[in-house]
């Protein structure tokens, strides 16, 4: 039940893109069509869902003072986390290249750039600072990925429609995407006060 709360909170209330503005680069660059956005969104859910538990295990059993090594190695956290993320992304890159070459070419340079998607490393750092349990970290990874997926699909759909509107030439494309994201972020801010745990308690 707690894991479900973490999932809902990560996906809607504390959306990584719209509440913390993490993972913006690929979010803005790959949101020109819903189809590519869909592919990238699935890849991000997958990478977040896998790296989060692996990083949890590393943080708990290798880096912390009462882990297997018995020394406080937290200064190595960045390097180890990013190494895990990079190897997972390389794996996803190879799988997509084999499974769907057309998606592979349309994602282009932004596939390796999932590694430097702030949402992935930021998610792992949030997980550490919030002291999640193993189950909650899995839920947080999947929920955060799902929230990112929703946000990129939403902006891609809006950008597909807005192509038919009469936007001033200087704002067309990227400029409009920035302003739309700002508006979406302000809309999502209204969800920030909701507490799923309290809601569940009220219903029962």
């Amino acid at each position, binding site marked *: 039940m707690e894991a479900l709360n973490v999932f809902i909170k990560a996906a809607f209330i504390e959306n990584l893109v719209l509440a913390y*503005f*993490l*993972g*913006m*680069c*690929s979010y*803005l*660059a790959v949101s*020109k069509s819903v189809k590519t956005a869909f592919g990238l969104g699935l890849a991000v859910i997958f990478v977040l869902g896998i790296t989060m538990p692996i990083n949890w295990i590393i943080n708990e059993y290798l880096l912390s003072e009462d882990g297997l090594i018995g020394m406080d190695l937290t*200064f190595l956290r*960045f*390097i180890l986390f*990013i*190494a895990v993320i*990079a*190897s997972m*992304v*390389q794996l996803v890159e190879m799988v997509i290249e084999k499974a769907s070459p057309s998606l592979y070419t349309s994602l282009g*340079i932004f596939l*390796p*750039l999932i*590694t*430097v*998607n*702030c949402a*992935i*490393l*930021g998610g792992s*750092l949030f997980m550490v600072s919030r002291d999640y349990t193993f189950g909650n970290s899995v839920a947080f990874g999947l929920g955060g990925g799902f929230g990112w997926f929703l946000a990129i699909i939403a902006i891609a759909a809006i950008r597909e429609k807005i*192509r038919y509107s009469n936007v*001033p*030439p*200087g*704002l*067309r*494309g*990227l*400029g*409009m995407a*920035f*302003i739309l*994201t*700002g*508006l979406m*972020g*302000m809309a999502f*801010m209204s969800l920030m006060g909701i507490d799923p745990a309290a809601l569940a308690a009220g219903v029962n």
Partner: protein
Amino acid sequence: MSTTTQEVKQVEKEPLFGKKERRLITDPLNDNNPITVQILGICSALAVTSLVYPSVVMAIAVIFVTAFSNLTTSLLRNYIPKSVRMIVQLIIIATLVTVVELMLKYFNYPIYKQLSVYIGLIITNCIVMGRLEAFAMANKPWRSFLDGIGNGLGYGLILIIVGVVREIFGKGTLFAGSPLEMKLIGNTSEFFINTTDSTLFGWYSNNNLMVLPAAAMFVIGIIIWIQRSRNTKLVDIS
């Protein structure tokens, strides 16, 4: 004899700081800006720009990391196997960011506390990795180093513009937290323009929207609008 003349010719062909090298630094400031044209490195641009001083420190940190990661990667480019290139690049970047973090901790602890998470997130700042992939893996060390400096400067320029706009309209100050702190407009007598007894500025109050991260999106959107209406070549055709 022939080899020496060849060497001399090569040196003449590639001056240390010629027109091409200057373009490497000036291009990213405007026509090939990492934030507004290449769309790289936006997360931190949103997060640290509510005040100018942290933006300046962040810009310096990023210039350092882009320049030296470009240099190191370019020196190693022929020895990095393609299949593990990302991991190698990320370890170079993570090491440099650790250096920056420790230096900042030593020299300026308050700003280190203020930036802490975002210094770590320079690792995932797409501009560093993007330049390594797009430039340093295919170019010589000196030019890669200049490209790193140029892109760091282009990034810092936008960061500081956004910081200035957000701080003046959001808080009424400039360089708050630094020795250069200026209080421009506000409702106490400490400020340069005091809105409580000024008849001219009595209507003015700080815009709280500017303090929220969403404001950075609007400011960058407007910067892009201005830049693209001045240079119509950059307009999106799609």
